[in-house]
């Protein structure tokens, strides 16, 4: 009987402890934030733009040094983040750039920008800027040619051709990278978000595991008898 009471006392203590922490964690869960670092680098011509921050949405401290090197570790230069966690680095060569940002206390972010994302040469960049101007003029032609029925078809084909030649993959990439930037950040923030379900699930796992250990132990003891 005495043992039974002891057992009940112990159970009550466990429950109280668990409740305490559950309630506290509930209260604080809005403040919760994960430790993971997130970031990205995007090439726009020879200008490499990047950002660094934590997965909860807060960005790297202003003035955090970004070390830039090639794949073998030879330093190429440094950049400094602004108050939004952004940094800009101008590439001089078409090689793979490695960005390393140390945000302190073991928060290190390493990012790579493959050489393919940089334009072939400096000439290429000027070419794309010129072509973007001419794209504007071709759209004018499209509007004016709308009235001439027959000529339109051939014209359209020519224009299509022209546009295809002029919208380089680089330009497309630039535009797309710009559009998906906020999406990317939202997705990584969402990925890191963990809620009540995870907490309860984790506790469930711990108790399940202990149950398994207890079960195996019991079996072993029974087998001995």
């Amino acid at each position, binding site marked *: 009987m005495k043992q039974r009471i002891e057992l009940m006392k112990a159970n009550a*203590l466990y429950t109280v402890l668990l409740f305490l922490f*559950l309630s*506290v*964690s509930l209260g604080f869960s809005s*403040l919760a934030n994960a430790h993971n670092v997130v970031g990205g680098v995007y090439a726009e011509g020879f200008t490499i733009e990047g950002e660094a921050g934590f997965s909860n949405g807060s960005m790297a401290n202003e003035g955090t040094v970004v070390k830039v090197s090639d794949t073998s570790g030879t330093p190429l230069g440094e950049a400094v983040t602004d108050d939004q966690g952004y940094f800009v680095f101008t590439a001089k060569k078409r090689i793979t750039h490695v960005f390393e940002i140390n945000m302190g206390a073991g928060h*290190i972010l390493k990012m790579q920008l493959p050489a393919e994302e940089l334009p072939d040469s400096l000439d290429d960049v000027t070419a794309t800027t010129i072509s973007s101007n001419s794209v504007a003029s071709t759209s004018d032609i499209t509007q004016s040619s709308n009235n001439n029925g027959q000529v339109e078809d051939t014209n359209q084909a020519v224009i299509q051709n022209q546009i295809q030649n002029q919208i380089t993959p680089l330009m497309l990439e630039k535009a797309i990278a710009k559009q998906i930037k906020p999406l990317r950040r939202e997705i990584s923030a969402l990925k890191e978000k963990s809620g009540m379900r995870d*907490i309860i699930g984790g506790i469930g796992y*711990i108790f399940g595991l202990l149950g398994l*250990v207890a079960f195996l132990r019991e079996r072993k003891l029974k087998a001995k008898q």
Partner: protein
Amino acid sequence: MHIVDGALSSPVLITGAVLTVIGVFIGLKKMDYDHLPLVGVLASVFFIASYIHLPLGFSSVHLIMNGLLGILLGWVAFPALLVALLLQVIFFGFGGLLVLGVNTLNIALPAVIIYYLCYKGIRHESAKVAAIWGAIGGAGAIIITSLMVAFSLALSGESFVLAAKAVLPAHIPIMIIEGFVSYAAVYLIHTVKPEFITKDAH
């Protein structure tokens, strides 16, 4: 407190993993199976405690509770913390699988040190004295853990002083809070369920 994947060099990772395996082995050997539920509750406590973040400037720190775990579990803190840390990696993305060994070592070894340091004090007849030792243990574990984190970062190339400067000040508030929490917990256990503490050492 959780070091992320990629911050440490491989020798540090391997050493941490090996030492953790040894610690877990000793812990499993010494485990008192009658107190299995206690191990589970404390592992859960740690699991949740890491989720309670206190905002601190741009960063945030969280409770660790390894002092309390050490006081109550001794070497068993190793397996208990390994399980909890593994689940944190899976559910919350804290730390990483590769650094699991180092993280477990950094949190469990201070717990074991505290177990031995506060062994006598915790077993004092007076609940108050025991609770004060509990507070010392709770705060002390954080200091040792912070130093170990800084040390692991230093071994991987970062300067120790710089790393320690980054890690230690952030944990001063946590140290104080943990001191109080451990004080309260030890006081409660000492009055309600003293055999958790006074159970024979193995």
